[in-house]
């Protein structure tokens, strides 16, 4: 059984690394379709990353070592996060190493390093992006924690693989609290991954950027790692969402190799649907002014806390 667990573990991390740019490409393609544009290639993110790895890096004169280290830290944090998210199987050896709260901490580490690196150079846009990122982050993080708390209360554990396993195996029941937190989670996902209501991933206007503004000074392999990390973050968030709200189909400890084999197409199907849904959400909503973003995230927090309260009161 242990061999299978390690196989699941390594397969999940490798799948996250390989599929993250593909998922990003799929979301972009769906968006293009919905907006009546000619869709870019599904493999475009891979080409972008490969191209950047072949270029020579240029680094600002006054950059400190932190600026050079940040892409590796951010990328490493995202890979570490991918290793504790049950995207295919729940019998992960790393389950005991870090629970869902540590996962939120890992995401926070990535955010802090990214913001510090953006401020390190001292350009106006980098600082602006970093400040906005922190503003979004400090509002989104409590909402995300509340979302996780509700699922933890229902399944009586904070380890994400165990949450997914218990939610998948228990008797089917209506959970209004989970429905509320699903809405909150979707809003947090949009905000944290610099998607449309809060930030526009395709913008070229520096004044409205949040995520892109922090990457303006990066080039070549550093930029490639940062972009790959961003794709991984989106993938990770999608998989957290699956684990919390649609855990069915992931292989549990008892289902053996056949379950693991079955969980691969299931994950693919979930990602297809999630990408389409994300693109649809982004197409129907307009970008908010930066100062309306707190209102958006306060709503997400409200949904999450409401879910928590409803669960505590009704036990559902």
């Amino acid at each position, binding site marked *: 059984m242990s061999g299978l667990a390690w196989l699941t573990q390594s397969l999940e991390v490798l799948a996250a690394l390989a599929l993250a740019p593909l998922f990003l490409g799929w979301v972009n393609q769906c968006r293009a379709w919905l907006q009546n544009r000619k869709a870019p290639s599904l493999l475009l993110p891979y080409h972008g990353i490969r191209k950047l790895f072949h270029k020579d890096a240029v680094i600002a004169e006054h950059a400190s070592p932190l600026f050079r280290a940040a892409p590796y830290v951010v990328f490493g944090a995202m890979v570490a996060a991918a290793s504790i998210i049950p995207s295919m199987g729940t019998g992960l050896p790393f389950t005991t190493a870090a629970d869902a709260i540590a996962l939120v901490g890992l995401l926070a580490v990535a955010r802090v390093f990214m913001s510090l690196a953006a401020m390190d150079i001292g350009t106006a846009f980098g600082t602006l992006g970093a400040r906005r990122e922190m503003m979004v982050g400090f509002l989104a993080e409590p909402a995300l924690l509340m979302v996780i708390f509700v699922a933890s209360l229902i399944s009586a554990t904070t380890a994400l693989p165990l949450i997914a396993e218990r939610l998948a195996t228990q008797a089917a*029941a*209506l959970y*209004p609290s989970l429905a509320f937190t699903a809405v909150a989670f979707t809003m947090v996902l949009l905000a944290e991954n610099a998607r449309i209501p809060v930030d526009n991933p395709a913008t070229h206007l520096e004044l409205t950027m949040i995520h892109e503004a922090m990457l303006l000074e990066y080039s070549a392999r550093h930029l490639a790692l940062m972009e790959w990390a961003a794709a991984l973050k989106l993938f990770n968030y999608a998989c957290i969402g699956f684990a919390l709200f649609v855990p069915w189909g992931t292989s549990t400890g008892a289902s053996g190799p056949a379950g693991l084999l079955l969980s691969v197409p299931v994950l693919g199907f979930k990602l297809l649907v999630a990408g389409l849904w994300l693109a649809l959400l982004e197409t129907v909503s307009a970008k908010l002014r930066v100062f309306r973003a707190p209102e958006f995230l306060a709503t997400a927090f409200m949904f999450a*806390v409401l879910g928590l309260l409803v669960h505590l*009161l009704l036990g559902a």
Partner: protein
Amino acid sequence: MNATSLDLQLLNTCAALLLLVSFAMLSQRRIVTLVNLLALQGALLCIATLLLAWRTGKSHLYVSAALTLGLKVVLLPWLLHRLIRRLEVHWDTEPLLNVPGTMLVGLLTVVFAFGLAQPIAELANTATRNAIGIAVAVILLAFITMITRRKAMSQVVGFLSMENGLFFGAMSATYGMPMIVELGVALDVLVAMLVLGVFFFQIREQFDSLDLHHLESLKEDR
């Protein structure tokens, strides 16, 4: 996990959605949407009453479900929409608190309401006693909706939402009030609505606006 039956789960979902609609009303600035939300709240209340009637087999709950449907989903929203058209008020002014602030106050109120309802819920012996907390929360949230608004229209919507909360509370605590009381309350609300409609025209005649702020100053001061 908990093995509650499906109809109780549906009832709980209805209760949760009622709470959500209350929050939506709290943060809504457009008066037309506010009235639509009130109608939605009424519809949820009607569904909850029907579910409870089916669960308990009490026939008078069917009557009150029909009453809810007729009065709170159809008649009152229609009256309010007509008033809005006649008075030409489509926007509420900026509420006294900003939206995130209102929501935080609302969340604290919900916590307070749940604590407040706990001893009552322990006394009740209905299957839906847990939902009493939600009913109290809906009432208090409607209070906040009234407090944070300046326009008479939104205050009336808050008042009607409060009545919805009271109705839901009575339903979940004791499976509904006696028929005579329910009919009386329904009639009261209808008459209050009509009288307030007349009031609106009078207020606007006097001050050229529906802002209740004007009522606070005495005539001599103006």
